[in-house]
């Protein structure tokens, strides 16, 4: 076990060093892209806590991101709150929203839960259109001031680091064990004294809080604009894709998943032959399918396979 911890810390330090060095070599535009990776990282981590560790699928995390994003914008636009202060506020509000969604979700599982959360992802972005006075309609709202690329970079990666450590501490202890037992066998979990309603709802809340913070940062990354169509169903699907590429039920692949959905659309918009305007969708869709065909359990699944291969070689040779 300690060797695994060592590998994990080496990987974490490597990522941290890369993140610290990058701003010195990148220009503002690329800094923005790498900040997006941090934002997706937080959202995927949140989804992983719910879907990977507690076994409750969600296709609605775009909705939580939107609630978080609008929290930041409304606080900043109407009350001129400091942007940093709005981040934990967004987390707190989406935590409560997550609990509220988690309670009815107790009755659902599997594909029905997937469709219910999907319903959430479709319905919530319609709300600003209906309450356009307060939420700005389809044009959206803007924060009272925008932030620089470097500011965003530092804040989003700091949030990612805090989120990761918090998530890791949460998952390795008593609560994480309860989550996993709920995922693996509800009957066994209840028999061992794990309260299903409490842990399932709590997982929803925590997961939503992560998505909410990611949503706040997401809004800041788009010049402080919150618009309903940015939080459409495609965002929720993107988070799910990132989670699947990373590998659910493990923290090892998170960076890969985040890089995948953060960078691939950028890279694939410049493919030859298909052209820049359509290349993005064609290549992104194609690569998503190929990755899933080759790695059905995501990057974490690949790592697990490599690990068992390394372990078994000394005995055979």
């Amino acid at each position, binding site marked *: 076990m300690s060797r695994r911890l060592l590998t994990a810390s080496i990987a974490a330090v490597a990522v941290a060093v890369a993140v610290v060095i990058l701003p010195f070599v990148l220009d503002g535009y690329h800094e923005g892209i790498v900040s997006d990776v941090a934002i997706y990282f937080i959202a995927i981590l949140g989804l992983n806590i719910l*879907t990977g560790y507690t076994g409750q*699928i969600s296709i609605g995390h775009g909705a939580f991101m939107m609630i978080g994003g609008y929290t930041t914008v409304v606080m900043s636009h109407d009350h001129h709150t400091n942007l940093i202060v709005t981040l934990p506020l967004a987390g707190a509000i989406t935590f409560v929203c997550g609990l509220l969604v988690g309670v*009815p979700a107790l*009755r*659902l599982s599997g*594909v*029905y839960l*997937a*469709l*219910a959360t*999907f*319903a*959430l992802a*479709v*319905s919530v972005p*319609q*709300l600003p*259109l*209906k309450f356009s006075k307060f939420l700005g309609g389809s044009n959206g709202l803007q924060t009272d001031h925008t932030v620089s690329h470097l500011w965003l970079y530092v804040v989003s990666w700091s949030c990612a680091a805090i989120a990761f450590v918090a998530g890791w501490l949460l998952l390795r202890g008593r609560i994480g064990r309860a989550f996993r037992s709920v995922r693996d066998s509800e*009957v066994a979990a209840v028999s061992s004294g794990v309260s299903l309603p409490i842990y399932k709802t709590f997982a929803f809340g925590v997961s939503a809080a992560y998505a909410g913070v990611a949503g706040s940062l997401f809004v800041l990354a788009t010049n402080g604009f919150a618009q309903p169509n940015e939080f459409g169903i495609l965002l929720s*699907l993107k988070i*799910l*894709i990132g989670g*699947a590429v990373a590998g*659910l039920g493990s923290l090892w692949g998170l960076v890969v998943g985040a890089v995948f959905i953060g960078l691939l659309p950028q890279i694939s918009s410049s493919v030859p032959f*298909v*052209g820049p305007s*359509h*290349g*993005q*969708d*064609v*290549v*992104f*869709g*194609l*690569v*998503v*399918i190929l990755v*899933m*065909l080759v790695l*059905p*359990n995501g990057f974490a699944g690949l790592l697990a396979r490599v690990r068992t291969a390394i372990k078994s070689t000394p005995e055979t040779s």
Partner: protein
Amino acid sequence: MLELATKRKTAVSTGISVPVLAGLVAAAVFLAVGSLSSGTFAQQTVSGLSQGAIFGSLALALVLIYRATEVINFAQGEMAMATTYIAYQLTLWHLSYWLAFFLTLLIAFVLGVVVQVVVIRPVQHKSVIAVVIITVGLFILIDGLVTWKWGADLKFMPAPFGNTVYHAGGVAISRQDIGVFAVSILSVGVLWVLFQFTKLGLAMRAAALRPAAASLVGVRVDAMLAVGWGLAAVLGAVAGLMTEPTQFLQPTMMQAVLLYAFAAAVLGGLESPAGAVIGGLALGVFLNLFGQYGKVGGYYLGTSELRLPIAFVILLIVLLLKPTGLFGRKQVRRV
């Protein structure tokens, strides 16, 4: 032996309970009485039924795939959209509308089979989430390919049913509504006959419900699942072609329809083909009538931007009250 088979068949396919049946009859009576007493009501009901038939046929496609593969096919709507573009291309080549229609259904079948064999089968038993993500990838890919080939601007096909409007006792009913309804329901009916009364249908149901047992009695399960995807794609193509007269051709045309089909499928219970169709019809009629009459103090609740959320509120309510849908069977789990 045959008797036993039919008994088992009905035990599997019907999950309808008495209160649900009573509710349906009551709703039908309500609609009939309303239509007889108000022209607007009748008009809204008819156009609701025609839209609902489209929802129902796409919902049935989803149910077919859910029963066979146990996943929701997120690409169902985009596959339908792509096949509609193929029909458009055929009419550009001076084929008559109905020739293009049937040729498209054939192409759709082949495409559905190819999708299942090439991208779904390799991961089918490995990971459910991988299959779901692959259908999401297909969604994005097909969207990109169609926009690349045909562009994102509106395209128009020849009108299949003309623009005639019939008047019956002050009620104006367009021929298009009737045509869309008839074609959708007819294709659903043909499929039902195929599943219920042919050997192929029996084999497909067996492959979907009890794969291991089916393969033991000589059913080629893999082939049957591929045929299931093909038939679902055909139903989707019908839904796409019937959506075109009202929405016209654009890459996003089926996205909202797919969402309504989700709602319809859940409404009826994801396991139940009949439920999907009835759920679609009910949803179409309800949304239309709610748009017309659903107002509180002069404030319309069913306006166009709220249609989708309303459909999903219905979905959520159904899920919470009866998680297996109106026609679903209760899942009993042994501990």
